[in-house]
C-alpha cells in the first residue's frame, strides 16, 4: 500500500477519493500531475535529486493566503470547572504540500487540500480577526476514524485559571506557529488554551507529537514570514 505522506522517489502514484497524484520520470525530467475533481495541475521539473516529500502543512494557503488565524468551532460547548486542567481531542483542517527534497521549505512545488474551505470573523468588524474556520467534534479519547488526508487530530489542553466555571465554544490559534507532526496514517499536533480572565484567554502550540515516532513537518509560514509582534500565541479577547 502506498501512503501519501513521506519521501517518495519517482515514479509513484497515489489515488484516494477525488485525489489522483502521479509523478513519472521521463528522460531527464520529472512530470508531476495532480488531479482533484475536474482541476488538474501539471508541472515538469529538472533536478538532480528527484525525491519528493509530501506532508501536511498549515491550512492557510488555500484558496488564498488572507489570514494567519485558525478558529476551531466546537459542535457542543465544553464546560470546564474553576482551576481545572482537561485534555480533549478535536480535529483541524490540513493542506498538503509537495516539496522537492532539495528545495526550500517555504517554496513547495504544489499545495492542495481535500478539506472544506471556509472563513469566519472572530470579534467585531473593526478590531476582529478573519480566521480559517473549521467545525469539529470534541472527544475525550483520541479519535481513530480521522481521514489523514483531510484533517488532523489536535490534542488540546484547556486550563481554566479563573475562579468560576467556563463554557468554551471555540478556540482561535495563530496558525503561523502550528507544529504539525505526521506519520503514514495520522496527522496531529498539540495545542493549549489558558483561560486567564473573564474576557481573556491565550492559546498556543506545543512542539511535541501526539504519538510516538511521528515526523515533524516543515513549517512553511515560520520560514516564510514571521511578524515581529505577536509571537505564535493568540490572545482571545472576544469570547470563548
Amino acid at each position, binding site marked *: 500500500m502506498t501512503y501519501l505522506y513521506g519521501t517518495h522517489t519517482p515514479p509513484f502514484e497515489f489515488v484516494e477519493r477525488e485525489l489522483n497524484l502521479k509523478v513519472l520520470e521521463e528522460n531527464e525530467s520529472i512530470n508531476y500531475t495532480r488531479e482533484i475533481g475536474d482541476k488538474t495541475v501539471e508541472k515538469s521539473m529538472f533536478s538532480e535529486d528527484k525525491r519528493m516529500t509530501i506532508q501536511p502543512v498549515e491550512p492557510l494557503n488555500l*484558496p*488564498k493566503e*488572507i*489570514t494567519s488565524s485558525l478558529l476551531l*468551532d466546537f459542535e457542543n460547548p465544553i464546560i470546564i470547572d474553576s482551576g481545572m486542567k482537561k485534555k480533549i481531542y478535536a480535529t483541524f483542517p490540513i493542506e498538503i504540500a509537495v516539496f522537492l527534497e532539495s528545495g526550500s521549505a517555504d517554496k513547495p512545488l504544489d499545495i492542495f487540500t481535500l478539506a472544506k*474551505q*471556509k*472563513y*469566519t*470573523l*472572530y470579534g467585531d*468588524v*473593526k478590531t*476582529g*480577526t*478573519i480566521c480559517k*474556520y473549521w467545525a469539529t467534534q470534541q472527544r475525550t479519547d483520541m479519535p481513530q476514524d480521522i481521514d489523514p488526508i483531510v484533517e488532523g487530530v489536535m490534542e488540546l489542553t484547556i486550563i481554566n485559571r479563573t475562579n468560576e466555571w467556563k463554557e468554551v465554544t471555540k478556540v482561535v490559534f495563530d496558525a503561523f506557529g502550528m507544529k504539525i507532526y505526521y506519520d503514514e496514517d495520522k496527522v496531529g499536533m498539540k495545542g493549549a488554551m489558558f483561560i486567564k480572565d473573564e474576557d481573556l484567554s491565550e492559546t498556543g502550540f506545543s512542539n511535541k507529537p501526539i504519538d510516538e515516532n511521528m515526523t515533524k513537518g516543515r513549517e512553511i509560514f515560520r520560514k*516564510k*514570514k*514571521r*511578524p*515581529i509582534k505577536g509571537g505564535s500565541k493568540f490572545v482571545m479577547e472576544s469570547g470563548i
Partner: protein
Amino acid sequence: MMLDRILYGGVTVSDFIVSVIILFAAVMIGKAVSLRIRHSLKDKVSKDRLNTISKIVYFLSLMIGFLIVLPILEFRISGFLVAGGILGIIIGFASQSIVTNLISGVFLTFERPFRVDDVVRLGGENGTMGVVEEIKIISTTMRTFEGVYVRVPNEKVFTGNITNFLENIARRFEYDVGIRYKDDADEAMELIKELIEEQPMALKNPEPQVFVEQLGGSAVELKVRVWAPSTEWFPLRMELLWKIKKELEENGIQVPFNQQEVWFKNALQTEEER
C-alpha cells in the same frame, strides 16, 4: 598648489572636495541603509510604515552629512537660523497653499485614516476612488481602478470626506432576488443558503441572512445579505449573484418577468367574430 587655493575665508579647494565626498557618501550610505531596511523588513512591517522608516533613515544620514560638512565649509548654524527665519517668512507668504498641504500631510501621518494599498474614496459620493499608492508630505497619490495616476493635494484629502473600504476587516453586500409566486420560497432560501455555505469567502460569522423582504407586484422578493473579508468582498459579490440565479433555475425556481393583469369591461372579440 591647486588644492590649497583659498575659495573664501579659510576654505580651500580641498575642503570643498572633501565636503562633496562626505555629502556623496552620506547619500550613498543613506540609500544603502534604507534599501537594506526595506529588504529585511518587507514581510514584517506594513508598506507605508516601511516607507516612513526608510525615508527617516535616509534623511537622517543626509542630515549627519550636512552637520559634518558645515564646519568644514565654515558655515555657522546660528547664521543659518537667522537667514532661515527670514526666508521662512518670505516663503510662508509666497507659498501659503504649500504650507497648508504640508501641515495637512503631517496631520494625515498622525491620524492615519488610510494606509498604502488601502482602497479609498476621497471627497464625497463623486470623489476619486482608487488604491492609495503613496502618502507624501505634500500630496497623496492614488491609482484608480482604470489604472490612472491621480495626485491629490493633502489639504483636499484632509478637509474632505475620506471613505476607506479596507479600514474594517469585513464588509457586507446584499442582493434582491425575485422568484415567482408559485415557487416555494422556503426551498429557494434553503438553496441560496447552501450555495453561500459553499463559498469559502462568504463568512460563517457574521451569519449570512436570506429572508422574504417583500411581496412584490410580480415576484416574491428575497433579500440576501453576505459578509466577506474586505479584501475579497468585490470578487465574491461579482460571482455569487449569477451562481444564485443558475442554482435556482436548475431547481425549477425562476426569476419572473414583470407581470400585469389587465381586465377588460367587455369581452374581447377577434376580427372574425366581429
